[in-house]
């Protein structure tokens, strides 16, 4: 004997942001990042280019992937994954980048 299943569906969000506007912003930011790539100062260039990349990613997340409209659980999952990546970087950097604690003459 099999059973039948009945579920309550959560209300689907119906707001749809202006996707073409977001797309335009993404293209503009792409041009900006290519131009920033020509800066002579390496630190400034890297910092700015990756900041722009971060902004683009957040735009895609919030609007295309609807994170703006999803429950907090999704942000929690994404923040967790990103946090642990940062932990990985901080934990490994002294060894690989920092010379491993060896004093160099």
């Amino acid at each position, binding site marked *: *004997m*099999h*059973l*039948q*299943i*009945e*579920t*309550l*569906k*959560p209300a*689907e969000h*119906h707001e*749809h942001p202006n*996707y*073409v506007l977001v*797309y335009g912003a*993404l*293209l503009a930011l*792409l041009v900006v*990042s*290519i131009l*920033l*790539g020509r800066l002579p100062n390496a630190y400034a*260039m*890297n910092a700015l*280019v*990756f900041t*722009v*990349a971060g902004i*683009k*990613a957040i735009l*895609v*997340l919030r*609007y*295309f*992937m609807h994170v703006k409209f*999803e*429950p907090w*659980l*999704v942000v929690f*999952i*994404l923040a*967790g*994954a*990103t946090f*642990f*990546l940062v932990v*990985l*970087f901080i934990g*490994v*950097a002294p060894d*690989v*980048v920092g010379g491993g604690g060896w004093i160099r003459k």
Partner: protein
Amino acid sequence: MTAIAHPVPVLRRQPPIIPSGRLGMWWFLSSEIVTFGGVVVSYILLRLVHPDWLHHSAHTLLSAGAINTVVLLTSSLTVVLAHRAAEHHDCCTARRFLSISFGLGVMFLCVKAFEYHHELSHGLTPRTAAFWGFYYTMTGLHGLHVIAGLIAMLYLILGARNPKVLGRVAPVGLYWHFVDIVWIFLFPLLYVTAH
């Protein structure tokens, strides 16, 4: 279709938090973040102690990378438009937008293939230097994910008349946007800051 009086017993469920297709995809994407992120972190760490890698990374084709970025961003737009159409149960529009995304994805792979051909014919293989090991790993893994996404899109395009299939546009869309986001970071990493 509403619930009807039924002689067969019914098991009622707690309401889901997010529909399962999307929730499952978010869990999967969280693991993908640390997968790609792990390679990127490793690359950044080694790159910081190897400024000489600039000689190698200068050989990546900025124009090809930029074209691919535009291609992927556009395909993301068409995917989300397909998602909106799918939500309104408009299978023809959804199918049209998904086909455009599919075509753009194929274009991405063609540009990538051109780049690989260019680099390999110049003798820039994983054997040449660690930078190229990272380059092929990152772009290769990304490319495999693009292929997987294209297969998923093909399934959606072919089955769009079926409402169950149409309901799967959302999770596939999430996956595709993620693939786009990875490229959003790979582009500056391997192309813009590399020259």
